[in-house]
């Protein structure tokens, strides 16, 4: 068994004519928390969808646990996905099911476990995210942070080898932010999983990750450990880490000269 759970080689992807990813190389070792960072629209979420097999590469390959994801048919993909979990940006909980039923969903769909065992497993998963007491609530009764934690409990229901997080810190208050970050690290370590976190929350993610890939305009602009990234002098990384308004990523969207737009050229 290879040390690397994910190996991405020369991966390119285009939506129609528009190239989103241009020759990405990325490796995730087992048991690591990897962050993929970059500004909005740089192709981070597309990369997650390619790893999960929701999209097929235009060229290059994505291998998960030695399996070429792009070459799988639907049955093969579904088989692989049973060993993966994904946390969507706003949880994507099933709104017609209670918290308990959301976490039990995969257990009911993919196993023939007796109800008592399902109940024990659901309560254990909910306890791991601190929400055992909320099992009877409906998703509409949860705060944003709680919904994210329930979704996390749901995604670990079948003890996956890999969890992908799509912007897990977006829109959370400082307490929920810390709790979510700490949960990602703790669950990765205790369950022996590998985690890939797509985020643009630099400060929170640098506290918990083992390795960071910075993506800009479809290519990996920089990579390294959290310490490497903090110390980086690359202009793009520096601007991103320190949240500067202007730099390689300009403040203004490309536009004609301001004076010309206001008709002041005469």
């Amino acid at each position, binding site marked *: 068994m290879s040390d690397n759970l994910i190996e991405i080689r020369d991966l390119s992807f285009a939506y129609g004519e528009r190239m989103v990813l241009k020759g990405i190389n990325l490796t995730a070792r087992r048991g690591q928390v990897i962050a993929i960072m970059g500004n909005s629209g740089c192709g981070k979420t597309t990369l997650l969808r390619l790893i*999960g097999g*929701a999209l097929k590469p235009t060229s290059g390959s994505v291998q998960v646990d030695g399996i070429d994801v792009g070459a799988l048919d639907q049955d093969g*993909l*579904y*088989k692989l*996905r*049973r060993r*993966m*979990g*994904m946390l*969507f*940006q*706003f949880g*994507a*909980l*099933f*709104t*017609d099911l209670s918290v308990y039923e959301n976490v039990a*969903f*995969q257990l009911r*769909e*993919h196993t023939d476990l007796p109800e008592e065992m399902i109940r024990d497993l659901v309560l254990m998963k909910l306890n791991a995210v601190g929400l055992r007491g909320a099992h009877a609530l409906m998703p509409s009764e949860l705060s944003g942070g709680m919904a994210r934690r329930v979704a996390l409990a749901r995604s670990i229901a079948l003890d996956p080898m890999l969890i992908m997080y799509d912007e897990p810190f977006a829109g959370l208050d400082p307490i929920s932010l810390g709790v979510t970050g700490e949960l990602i690290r703790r669950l990765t370590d205790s369950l022996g999983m590998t985690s890939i976190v797509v985020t643009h929350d630099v400060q929170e993610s640098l506290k918990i990750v083992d390795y960071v890939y910075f993506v800009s305009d479809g290519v990996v602009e920089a990579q390294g450990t959290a310490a490497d990234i903090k110390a980086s002098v690359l202009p793009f990384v520096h601007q991103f880490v320190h949240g500067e308004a202007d730099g390689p990523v300009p403040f203004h969207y490309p536009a004609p000269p301001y004076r010309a737009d206001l008709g002041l050229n005469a």
Partner: protein
Amino acid sequence: MEAVIRSVRGLGHRIVNVVQRMGVAARFFVLTLLHSGPSFRRFQLILHEIYSAGVLSLIIILVSGLFVGMVLGLQGYETLQTYGSSDALGILVALSLVRELGPVVAALLFASRAGSAITAEIGLMRATEQIEAMEMMAVDPIARVVAPRFWGAVISMPLLAALFSAMGIFGGYLVGVVMIGVDEGSFWSQMQAAVDVKNDILNGVFKSFVFGVAVTVIALFEGYDAPPTAEGVSRATTRTVVTSSLAILGLDFILTAFMFRGV
């Protein structure tokens, strides 16, 4: 000349789009049928949808049926008594409802109440990434979300149409017999003698089954295919009601032409 070419090209483009969309919808329908097995193995999923689509539509169906029947009683009596045939009121009310008004009006109401709800629910599930989350959990949304709703609605529709007709006949009885004073024996016995199980009742049930399939496929497809935005879901919901209503009326003419020719 340029403008003519542009408008012809635009028209052709729209027609190609419509035909392509119908092809995708037909493929969606076939996929739904092919993935129906798990729904029947876990029948509680279908029962839940029968509750959502059928039981929750009962109020509007029963109340509308009652009023349509009462109006039929009034209008029918008014016309029949001109010819001295007011005893035939039972036949008029029953045949109008069982053959035509029951299946058609119940299906139109079903499209507005349950069809729009199905489209909005599935459209919102897509907009909030619930469908994608299901796919990432290796659960086929066509089998888990679409097929149970399809069968739940298709089973509900003929039952609702039958209840609509029954309620309508009761409404006609209330107005004709209880309020106006038409002979009760004539009302029921003439109805019993004239209404044929195969030609009238079974044909009506078949019609409502076809309408149920049409409305449900349109509602499910519009929801599943809706752009994942508030505007996209709202437009899809409107399209469900408009397209379903037109489909019901068009299909009704075709089915009636085949069923009752020469009668």
